[in-house]
């Protein structure tokens, strides 16, 4: 072989500058992912259209036909469709807020324990258990809540009503002078919902906490920070937007939860903040489940209008969450 021939492979390997035909695999994969992405948008649009179209008759009814055909719509009692939706939005937000107020600190505590306090083996086990909690169907949570949790909570509610009844939240029923004796109240629903959303909030915050730069943690420790001070200096500021995003995801789940609330709460309609009295609140989702089996076509249309309201609320919450989480990217560029 001559020297020239040895150089030949180099020339042969040179890629031509002209465009070449796209491979089949490339095209197929591109097409599949495009279709998948479009499906999501199409589904969302389909759901939104369905809700709007089906709810339209109920929303635009001015003739009083709706009230005549749906027995639970009572304009004479201040309960026309819009007013009912108002009560239910209030109930939904109230109960979800209770759930969030209980679940957020607990979840952050658990996540912090797993990420920064527990020995490695225990942390792995705990993380697994938390993920298992997320897999329990909500109807099981509802059963457990109704049968096990309510009797446990009742004495505590009695105590709250007797000793802290002057706080509007814990006010007893003005007629009987006591709090509900069944425990089927907004606080119970909030507590069970809190247990249901703890896994998702914990899982997301744990991931965020684990991503805290070692550099910042060591900076705090090397200045003589205790572990808790290190967490406050390095972990929380870094994970702040992640924690907010996780909480919003939990809120999104709490807003839409149906079965657990349906099985626990004694339903009613009001703008009352008395979370220890039964028959005052209900959520949109639980109300739909409650009324749907006996609904005629007008009733279904009215229920779908409520579904539309829930759709809008969850959409807003999720958009808020996305927005907060996306602000993170600016922060992470800080170092």
């Amino acid at each position, binding site marked *: 072989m001559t020297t020239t021939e040895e150089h030949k492979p180099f020339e042969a390997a040179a890629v031509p500058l002209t465009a070449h035909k796209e491979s089949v695999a490339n095209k197929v994969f591109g097409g599949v992912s495009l279709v998948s992405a479009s499906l999501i948008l199409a589904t969302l649009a389909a759901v939104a259209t369905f809700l709007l179209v089906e709810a339209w008759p109920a929303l635009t009814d001015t003739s009083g036909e709706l009230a005549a055909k749906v027995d639970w719509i009572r304009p004479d009692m201040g309960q026309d469709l819009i007013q009912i939706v108002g009560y239910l939005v209030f109930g939904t937000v109230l109960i979800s807020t209770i759930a969030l107020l209980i679940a957020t600190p607990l979840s952050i505590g658990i996540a912090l324990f797993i990420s920064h306090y527990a*020995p*490695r083996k225990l942390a792995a086990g705990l993380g697994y258990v938390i993920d298992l909690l997320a897999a329990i169907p909500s109807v099981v949570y509802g059963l457990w809540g109704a049968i096990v949790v309510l009797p446990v909570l009742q004495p505590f509610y009695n105590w709250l009503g007797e000793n802290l009844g002057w706080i509007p939240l814990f006010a007893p029923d003005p007629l009987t002078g006591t709090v509900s004796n069944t425990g089927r109240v907004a606080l119970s629903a909030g507590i069970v919902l809190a247990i249901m959303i703890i896994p998702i909030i914990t899982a997301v915050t744990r991931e965020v906490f684990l991503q805290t*730069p070692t*550099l*910042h943690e*060591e*900076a*705090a*420790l*090397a*200045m*003589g*920070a*205790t572990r808790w*001070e290190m967490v406050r*200096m*390095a972990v929380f*500021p*870094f994970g*702040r937007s992640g924690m907010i995003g996780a909480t919003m995801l939990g809120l999104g789940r709490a807003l839409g939860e149906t079965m657990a609330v349906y099985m626990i709460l004694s339903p009613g309609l009001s703008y009352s903040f008395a979370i220890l009295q039964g028959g005052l609140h209900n959520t949109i989702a639980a109300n739909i489940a409650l009324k749907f089996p006996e609904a005629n076509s007008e009733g279904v249309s009215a229920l779908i209008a409520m579904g539309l309201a829930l759709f809008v609320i969850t959409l807003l919450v999720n958009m808020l969450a996305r927005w907060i989480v996306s602000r993170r990217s600016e*922060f992470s560029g*800080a*170092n």
Partner: protein
Amino acid sequence: MSKRIDVNNLNVYYSKFLAVEDVSLAVEPNSVTALIGPSGCGKSTFLRTLNRMHEVIPGARVEGEVLMDGENLYAKNIDPVAVRKHVGMVFQRPNPFPTMSIAENVLAGVKLNNGRISKSDAEELVEGSLRGANLWNEVKDRLDKPGSSLSGGQQQRLCIARAIAIKPDVMLMDEPCSALDPISTLAIEDLMQELKNEYTIVIVTHNMQQAARVADRTAFFNIAGTGQPGKLIEMNDTATMFSTPSEKATEDYISGRFG
């Protein structure tokens, strides 16, 4: 106040793995001591035992003793958190807290452990520490801006200011210039010469010229092979180490034959 450090028969472990074996050396007060050696020889690991940062890693532990002015830092009744208030540390990469302003970064250590400080004292301490780190003139007009808005070299000097704000006795520096450009490196090296008037300084460096420029004494660490523990080969005045080292391995390393 500058303090001396005496290390006696120190073994450092990561779980069962012996990372650094049987180190005994003395660090004089008001001096700069450089630790040099090839990658993986345990010099950074050793440095982190001097403020008990080593044990932050799960499973890490130490045998032997580290005496600071005669007091064993590894005695049973010693709180590692308190040790770190006396032995400050500057890291390889500048790590100011990104969510804190320049002034807050300087005060971060002082406010720990329920430390309270009046506003005028705080301002004084911020200025004093930033002056001490040769950074005051560059940042005095933007103390409320985030620490991460500074250049790499400025950030590193901010970290030094943060470390001297808690008034330590000893300052550890773990390759403080390895992420910096030559001019920033020079600024930090000049700073070290000023800082040694008040503190005992121990610096880990990969850069032998840097050791030769800044250190009064130099310790050479080496490792026999992968999986073997790092050992202190020899320690001497920097001038002697770089002209007539007593060990063959030291001579090979500083003349660039390996590492």
